[in-house]
Structure formats: C-alpha cells, structure tokens
C-alpha cells in the first residue's frame, strides 16, 4: 500500500513466502491471498484508490453502452472475445463481455460467451468460493435466477435477542426515502417490562430515534410490552389485533403509524447480479 500500489495491483503482485506457499494448510480454499489483500486495502484505505477516474465512474449499464459503442458494437466485441477465450484470456474476456451484457442483456450470444468464460474461470479456481461464484454466475446467465423459497421469518428467539434500537435501525433501513418526501411523523413509544422509551421521528426522509425520551407534541403515543412488538414483527399477531386485545394501548392518532409503515420497502429475495436489474429500484 505504501509503495503506492492499488488493491488490484497488489493482488496481482503479492505472493506468500515460499515457506507458506506450498503448505497445504495455507492454500486459499476459502479465503484467497488475492482477495484477502484487497480486504486489507479496504480496511486501511477504503474503496477509493485515489485515482480520480475512479471517483465517479458511470454505473454498469451506462458504462456498458458507451464501451460497446467505443469498441465498435456487439459483433466486433464478440468476434475478438471468442478468439481470446480460446487463448485462455478469461479475465479480460469476462470484463469486456460483461460490458456488452449490461448494455444488451437480451443478446443471447453475449450471455452465452460470458457464461462460457465464467465457467472456465470457475474450473481454474483453486478457491472453492471463487469457483462457486463463477459457476453460479455462468448458470444465472444461461438459465436465469433460480426461484428461491421465500425467506423464513426471523425466529422469535432471534428477534428477542435484538435490542429495541436495532429494530428501529431495521425500520430506518427499510424506509423508502423518496416516498417519505415532505412527511413529518412523531411517535412516542413506551415499553413496559423493559422500561424503555423512545421518540421515533420521520423528517427529511429519514427515520431517527431518541432513547429515554417522549415528545410533548407527538402524533401518537404507544405503550406495550416489547414482546408484543416482537409478535407483530414475527407476524404472530397484527398491530390492530394487539390493540383490540388490550396488549397495546395508545393515545393520539394511531393512523400515523399506519402511514409510516406504508412507506416501508419489502426487499426482494433475489436480485440480478451478473446482468442489469430487471425491476427498477425506486
């Protein structure tokens, strides 16, 4: 790092000493020296390599379209790539044809050639995790994403292990910022049993909280056992049911909570990795 090499350059250069390189227990089956050194670079210097070309690059689809245009179009790229693939220049072929797949995700020749390239990289890999990554990339280019079973809900024991602050953090992560434009919601929470209190505030498209406080001018105030909140999250009961059964007490306008929850995103189980996103994220 202090010689001025960037993460990619270090990975290309660095070798374990001979005394370790041939030791079976030091071989990179799970981690690998070539990605572990990048992790060290990340820890101390971060993702930016200080070259301003990498400060604000175009994202994959926009960059892919321009690369394809500059490289003379799909056919020109594929002809060169097929030639280099046969010579074993897998890493650059993958880089070049990935631009084409991001520019033209329905170009079947491009997908097939990139899949073939990833597959050879997988067959070459000594690291099991590299092999899995390349071969799964090839499979998704050929067959599309598998249908994964729905994500199981978090078990109650696991949920109970989370601090209440972490539950608010999860809500903050799920908040759809653009949908929250112009909204201002303030909710008081008071948990019996744990004696915790919070003010949860939506303002400036961000959800924040203050612990150990209650706002005088809240839209609504809720009082409930923490376990009831866990039941609602685990979908063992619903918020209105818990209110009806007296587990949750409130004052003020409880519909403001419903309004807040309507701004929450549900994250997809699957999303595209080796090709452009098919469903736009807004």
């Amino acid at each position, binding site marked *: 790092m202090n010689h001025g090499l960037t993460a990619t350059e270090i990975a290309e250069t660095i070798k374990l000493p001979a005394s370790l390189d041939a030791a079976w227990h030091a071989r990179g*089956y*799970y*981690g690998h020296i070539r990605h572990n050194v990048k992790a060290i670079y990340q820890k101390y210097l971060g993702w930016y390599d200080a070259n301003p070309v990498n400060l604000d690059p175009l994202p994959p689809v926009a960059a892919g379209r321009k690369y394809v245009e500059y490289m003379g179009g799909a056919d020109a790229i594929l002809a060169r790539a097929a030639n280099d693939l046969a010579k074993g220049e897998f890493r650059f072929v993958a880089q070049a044809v990935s631009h084409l797949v991001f520019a033209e995700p329905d170009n079947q020749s491009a997908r097939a050639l990139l899949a073939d390239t990833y597959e050879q990289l997988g067959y070459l890999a000594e690291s099991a*995790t590299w092999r899995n990554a390349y071969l799964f990339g090839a499979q998704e280019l050929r067959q599309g994403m598998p249908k994964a079973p729905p994500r199981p809900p978090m078990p109650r024991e696991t949920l109970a292990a989370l601090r209440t602050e972490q539950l608010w953090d999860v809500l903050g992560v799920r908040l759809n910022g653009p949908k929250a434009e112009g909204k201002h919601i303030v909710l008081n929470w008071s948990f019996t049993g744990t004696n915790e209190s919070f003010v949860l505030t939506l303002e400036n498209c961000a959800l924040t909280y203050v612990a150990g406080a209650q706002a005088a001018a809240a839209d609504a105030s809720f009082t409930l056992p923490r376990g009831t909140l866990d039941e609602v999250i685990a979908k063992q009961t619903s918020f209105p049911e818990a209110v009806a059964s007296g587990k949750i007490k409130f004052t003020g306008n409880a519909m403001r909570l419903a309004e807040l929850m309507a701004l929450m995103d549900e994250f997809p189980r699957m999303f595209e990795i080796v090709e452009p996103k098919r469903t736009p994220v807004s």
Partner: protein
Amino acid sequence: MTEAASTKAPKEASAPVVARHAATLKALPFSDTRDFEDAARGFLGTVENARITSAQGRVVWSLEPYGFLSDAEAPPTVDPSLWRQSRLNMNHGIFEVVPGVYQIRGLDIANMTLIESERGVIVVDTLTSIEGARAAMELYFRHRGRRSVAAVIFTHTHTDHWGGARGVLDDETMASGKVPIIAPNLFMEHAVSENIIAGPAMLRRAQYQFGPFLAKGVRGQVDCGLGKSMAAGSVALLRPTDLIMATGDKRTLDGLEFEFQMAPNSEAPAEMHFFIPRYKLLNLAENCTHNFHNLLPFRGADVRDALAWSKYLGEALQMWGGKAEAMCGQQSL
C-alpha cells in the same frame, strides 16, 4: 438432449485450463499425503453418508451427492488442489482428538467439540441446525455412552456455531436453567447485528459464495473450502448465561478448568480461544483452520482485522505453546 438444453448445460474444460491444472500438479507437493492420515485419525464411526433429516423427513444435510469425490484424480474441470481439499472435507463422523475429547465433523460446515468433564460433557459449538446438533449428540452418545450436558460454549457469533443449540439442550434442561451457556463478551450484540443492516443483500450474495443452487458435481459445486456446504434446518439463538470478558479469565465447568483468551474482531466480531490444562488441549475456534481463511467473505461483512487476528494467534502460542499437546478448531481441522 435438445439444442436449447445443451446450451444451458455446463461444458468441458478448455485447453488452457487443462494446461494450468497440469502445472499445478507439478508445482504443489501432492505426494505429501499426511493430511489424509491426519483427517482420518481418531475416527470412531459415523452416520451413513452423514445424512441428517428433519422430523418431516426433509434432508437437512447429506454428503451422498458428493460421492463423485471418491476418485483420487482430479477431473479436468476442477483445480487439483481444490479437488484434494474437497476430498479431505469428505471425512465425517465422530473423531477422538485425545481420550476424553471428541469432535463431530462433516455433519455440518462447522465442527462440534465434546469435552468429557467430571460427570457430564461440555459441548463446544452447536452446528447450524437443531436437527444437525441432535444427530451429532446421538452419534456421540452411541460411541461414548449417554452423558448429561454440563455446559455449552459458543466460541463465536457465526450461525453455524450456535444455530443448533436447541438440539443440544432439550426443553427440560432449558427450563432447569442449570446448564451454563458460555460465550465471548458482546456475543448477543454481534450474533444478530452482523446481519441486521444488510441481511437481505448478504443472503443473496451468499448464494454466490456457497453455491447452494449449483448442481454438485465435477462441473458444479464441489466444496466451500471450509467444509462442504451450508446446512439447512431450523435455527434458534439462545442467550448466553455467562460471558467471558478478558484474556486470562478462567472457569471450572463440571470439575474441568478452562482458561480463555479473547479474540474480538478476528474471524468474527466476538470470538474466543481456550485451553484445558487437564487435557493439554488448545481450541482456537475458527481462527486457525486448515486453509487460508477469509478477511472479507463474498456474502459481504465488515472487513476483518488481519493484524489483530495474527496477534491473537501469536499470543495463544505464547500463553500455551509450551503446554499444549493437542490443538483443535471448530472448522475444517
């Protein structure tokens, strides 16, 4: 096969790949087969094909699909060094580490260590799933006789080391509250929080790391490096009853003395090592495995501290290097 199907199927290894594998065969010491002897040492018995099913009959773990690894020679589509490791990771069953200390290996991606104490047995790490942990305990009882669980130790916060705890501790034992669950400081904070902010993305990315949707085979998934694959099954997190706070902390568990070493921000945000004087046994959790471990898994995580990690190993050597006669880990060892 139709043409459409054939374009979707995996292909042969190309000439440049075959050439590279040939070079690897020459470059690495394949004639050194000590690892195979070491990995089989102390073997007492196993469950057929390491097959574990849930109460509903669903297979949560099985090494049967990896039968193709019985061939000693690597096929052209797998790196020969990886092939060797994949074959080593096929060892499964119960193994004697030293008399009184046993390990269940190959029934999960992680190992369970069973340490016999005065009257019972201390269970170190409980595998990923409740079903897996139950099967591991049954295998142990079959070979060593039934003993009550005197304590449970979680070495660190990754799910494959605590997910199956309810398969080790039944309802009755749990209700009695008499069995301590020992873990490194900040265990609960990190057991779940590592997956809180970016959990959904990590789950999808993990598919690329472990390859659960790839067919197992010479043109598909052969291993995960640390072990064969991710286990399925039910998971539940139990709250520790006793936290280890500092290096040098000791506990006497059912008559057996343990000395602990803290190793935070190493392979996991909360992790610890321990030494048992009576067995002269050192356990380095997942910080010392029979491969080059990961400083940043592909699923995504906070980057791990390589410098701290290396210092913990150095410190462990300094503390116990002259005393320990056996060493075991909780993964791939």
